[in-house]
């Protein structure tokens, strides 16, 4: 079948191309319905990745956060019409120690292969997970980023010591909101504190136990562990402040992506005996765990509705650019494209 693929050809320039999609008995086909824009997509769209990276990756369809409907399934796994979240991580091998999202051979939609901005997406049945009945579709569009927080918290539970009275989350953006919300639900006995730069944004974190401006952290505040959800140029400052604030033998989970190397105060890391670990992306087990968490805590999707930003119904290729341009200027919130192209 001639599948229409909407690729980024150059910064700020999309183009419809056609690829012959093989229909076989091992793959099902999903019609994307709701797609969400991530910072990583924006870095390609605006051309802020290094030139060599842009040259190597483009042309490529963007978007790795999205849901859709199963329209064709010769594998017989799903009923036609089943609403599913698409997993962008496509491993080609299994490893008993290394998770699928860390295998160097794994392909990732919108990074090392075409993303979900396509007429149809062909996937093996293990690359989709059924959405809970009745979930808000617009919120479900950004399940992928929520699964990344879920993945990081699951690993944190493996790596950190069990005194988890107070956990700090640095970052008052979308990732900070999602991570602190999941922490509150997955570790209900812990106090969750938010550290950010914008009081108004932090007021939206109504589920958190307290919120502090990074310029005004009380000296006697004790944090057992911390999550960095800042990324970019502000990463260094945030990590530095975490190292200063955290209790000895605490665990620091780094989630923010930075284009440039970030200096770390290793002297204090050594002195305090800190654990620092990074997490990126997620795997099928995280999606399944997250769907279970949604079933047990139906208020999580409701909270996530608060970070839905602008919604765009796309009719043609020009609308894709409009959605990306609007997304650049948002203060907080996820931009969701309702895919009608």
């Amino acid at each position: 079948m001639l599948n229409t693929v909407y690729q980024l050809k150059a910064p700020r320039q999309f183009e419809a191309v056609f690829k012959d999609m093989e229909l076989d008995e091992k793959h099902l086909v999903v019609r994307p319905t709701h797609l969400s824009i991530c910072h990583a997509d924006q870095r390609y769209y605006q051309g802020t990745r290094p030139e060599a990276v842009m040259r190597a990756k483009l042309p490529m369809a963007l978007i790795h956060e999205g849901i859709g409907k199963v329209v064709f399934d010769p594998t017989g796994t799903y009923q036609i019409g089943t609403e599913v979240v698409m997993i962008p991580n496509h491993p080609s091998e299994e490893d008993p120690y290394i998770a699928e999202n860390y295998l160097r051979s794994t392909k990732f939609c919108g990074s090392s292969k075409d993303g979900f901005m396509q007429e149809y997406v062909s996937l093996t049945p293990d690359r989709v997970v059924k959405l809970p009945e009745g979930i808000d579709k617009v919120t479900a569009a950004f399940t992928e980023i929520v699964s990344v927080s879920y993945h990081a918290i699951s690993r944190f539970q493996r790596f950190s010591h069990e005194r988890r009275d107070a956990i700090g989350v640095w970052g008052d953006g979308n990732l900070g909101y999602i991570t602190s919300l999941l922490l509150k639900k997955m570790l209900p006995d812990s106090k969750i504190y938010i550290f950010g730069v914008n009081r108004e944004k932090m007021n939206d974190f109504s589920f958190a136990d307290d919120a502090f401006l990074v310029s005004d952290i009380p000296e006697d505040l004790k944090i057992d562990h911390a999550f960095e959800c800042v990324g970019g140029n502000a990463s260094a400052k945030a990590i530095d402040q975490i190292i200063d604030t955290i209790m000895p033998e605490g665990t620091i989970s780094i989630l923010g992506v930075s284009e440039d190397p970030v200096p770390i105060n290793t002297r204090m890391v050594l002195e305090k005996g800190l654990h620092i670990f990074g997490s990126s992306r997620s795997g099928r087990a995280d999606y399944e765990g997250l769907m279970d968490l949604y079933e047990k805590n139906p208020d999580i999707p409701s909270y996530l509705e608060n970070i839905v930003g602008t919604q765009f119904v796309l009719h043609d290729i020009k609308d894709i650019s409009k959605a990306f341009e609007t997304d650049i200027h948002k203060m907080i919130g996820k931009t969701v494209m309702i895919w009608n192209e």
Partner: protein
Amino acid sequence: MEKTNIYGVVLAGGIGSRMGNVEKPKQFMEIGKKPIIIHTIEKFVMNPQFERIIVLSPRQWIKYTQDTIRKYVLQCEKIDVIQGGDTRNETIMNAIDHIESAYGLDEETIIVTHDSVRPFVTHRILEDNIRLAQKSGACDTVIPATDTIVESCNHQTITNIPDRANMYQGQTPQSFKAKKLRDIYSSLSESEKKILTDACKIYVLKGEKVELADGEVFNIKITYPHDLRMAEALLGGEA
């Protein structure tokens, strides 16, 4: 799934007289690794709204069409291949008669008729056609005209140059409430039927409303050899 009462009608009636010296009808020419008609049929198979897909073929090519579909299309059991008529509209009438006798026809039965040689049709175009046909009874897929249209009734001098802003180029699909289309067509005189090369014109001739569905510039009809080269060029990307 519940019965949708929506049918895809793939028109493969032509024998490719405009395609130069090819032996087979143009719908069997290959782009990528498959015949054009297979790419087109797969777009209909992929849309669960279609109850059945009726493929209309010249009589002598029915078996070949059936074999080709069996060879390439997974889950081909919802495809019927039947004989086309002498004209495009007679072919559509054959499809409607077939739907009536095999599956039943009522006022709300929708047919989405499409050229077998337009394999670049998209999910969005098919969905818009279904929606507009359900809403208004008939729709035609068009794109705004890019060239100025020049009318000449004597084929020597210009009779009229219509305002381009009001001109569109017709594509397919064209979609209809099937029963009404047949009723209107049956009411035409034989001479009226002869001058109609287009199903939507049946409606226009009788003063009935036909909605416009947005097409795409790439929804090309593969008619001439250079169209085939264009299609191959469009299909440049690796899957």
